[in-house]
């Protein structure tokens, strides 16, 4: 009898152990809801400085850290995505907001490298400073496997950014005049709080409602998704935030004028300690009306002989 019990016990134990070996090792896999096509890891590469990234090297990092939101196929359908707003980036479309390249063109590898490292404030994309540079470069290469655009096109050329002029009250005044003339207030509102007349009906390129940036929110954190520096802000309206209502102003604004606009925008961040706000306080918080000091074109000779004798 004991022999029967012992052998039965051994048999059951053996069966349990056997199934343990046969069960797939990655117990954290998403529930299997049917046959899924395998992810094709194309041999894409990235080049950032002297680091070369390879897509194949990032496969397990992507699965562990990124697929939860961005999806196994990079289509922003990760299992967490339903609870996220804004939605994760859809890599299959290859449209990116934060770039240094003109509207309609692909970002550079360095743009993507920085985006991963910096994360996106006010969204669920963390600051991925846990990765090594090589890991980040590999992930940049991995992102490229999801859209055929990367195979057909080169990245756009980064825009040229002139040196930033000094922050003066005149610069801020010019920026304010530009803000009015270029009708930024239509979406951003006259105080940049994201409450302009067109704000309520804005939708992104996937028809999801989207709000314009509220400059007055936050204190010393800039809360700009594309980076904290003045240069990052400059890039936003020279490249446009592709995929969103924010257009590019590269065709309609002079590069130096764009710096004046940046200085004005910083004063809209009323609670932030910045050089621009210091300059504004020194001017008693009043932005003077902008006077166009560019020299007038030379008058035609006939003007001097006009009968009215005016200027």
């Amino acid at each position: 009898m004991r022999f029967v019990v012992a052998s039965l016990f051994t048999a059951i134990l053996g069966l349990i152990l056997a199934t343990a070996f046969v069960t797939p090792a990655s117990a954290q896999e998403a529930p299997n809801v049917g046959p899924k096509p395998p992810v094709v890891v194309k041999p894409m590469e990235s080049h950032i400085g002297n680091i070369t990234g390879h897509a194949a090297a990032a496969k397990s990092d992507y699965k562990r850290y990124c697929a939860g939101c961005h999806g196994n196929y990079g289509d922003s359908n990760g299992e967490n995505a339903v609870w996220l707003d804004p939605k994760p980036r859809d890599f299959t479309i290859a449209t990116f907001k934060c770039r240094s390249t003109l509207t309609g063109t692909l970002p550079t590898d360095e743009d993507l490298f920085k985006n991963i490292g910096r994360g996106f404030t006010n969204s669920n994309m963390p600051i991925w400073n846990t990765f090594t540079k090589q890991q980040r470069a590999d992930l940049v290469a991995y992102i490229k496997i999801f859209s055929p655009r990367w195979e057909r096109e080169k990245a756009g050329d980064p825009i040229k950014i002139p040196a930033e002029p000094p922050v003066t009250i005149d610069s801020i005044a010019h920026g304010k005049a530009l803000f009015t003339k270029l009708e930024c207030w239509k979406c951003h509102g006259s105080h940049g709080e994201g409450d302009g007349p067109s704000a309520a009906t804005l939708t992104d390129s996937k028809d999801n409602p989207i709000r314009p940036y509220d400059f007055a929110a936050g204190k010393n954190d800039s809360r700009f998704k594309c980076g904290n520096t003045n240069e990052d802000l400059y890039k936003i309206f020279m490249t446009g935030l592709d995929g969103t209502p924010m257009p590019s102003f590269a065709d309609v604004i002079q590069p130096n004028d764009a710096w004046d606009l940046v200085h004005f925008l910083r004063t809209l961040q009323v609670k932030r300690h910045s050089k621009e706000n210091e300059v504004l306080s020194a001017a008693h918080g009043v932005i003077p009306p902008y006077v166009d000091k560019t020299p007038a074109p030379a008058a035609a000779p006939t003007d001097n002989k006009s009968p009215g004798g005016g200027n």
Partner: protein
Amino acid sequence: MKAHYKTFAVMACTLLMLGFGLWYSAHKTLNVSAAATGGITGTIKFDGTPPHQKPIDMSKEPNCAKEHASNPVMTETVVVGPKGGLKWVVVYISEGLDAATASQVPSVTPVWDQKGCQYTPHVMALDVNQHFKVSNSDPHSHNIHPLPAPNGANHEWNRSQPPGTPPFDQAWAGQEVAIPVKCNIHPWMHGYMAVVKGPTAVSDDNGSYTIKNLPPGNYTVTAWQEVYGSQSQKVTVGAGKPATADFTFKAKAY
């Protein structure tokens, strides 16, 4: 004396022959396309009651609200004329184009205008790589935001265009019927750019269209409307008088 006349006669004949030869070859090059091409013409009709077009509320843009105060602008998704003609239908050749005709790019640069907070024209047909100009005739800014299908040859871009900006020169790299265009500042503005190789036409207020400069041959001609989609038919084009291809789009039950 006789010798002079002889030389003169020979020279005159040579000159005459040269002149005739030049005239003939010029005549031939100029007229060969005109003589050998045909076209397709027809009328697009709408069968049934078209969906109601609604007046657009432009109060968010005071300039435009004022401009249209006495005569509100209607939506343009289905525009049917008094005799049942369907406007804004793109007609193009979907099959049968020979390589030479398909690769020709017209030098004409049509204008996509923003006026009175509307796109004019509402639907524009373009060839691949054909340049067009985007202009802003309003006293306020617009942004032009075409949204081509992702991962094709055409890419989404978004440009601001304040009043007084010179027109933007653009072109599309691949066939697409059709690319929706929107303005984020004025959400009621909608238009379409249909990019397709070969000669095209867009139907007018009476639903009439004419496709010109088509070499003789057998073609499949397709008509596309933004709500009702596409319809095709086969047509044989001969030199001279255009062939006829009429289309009818039926109202949907809901």
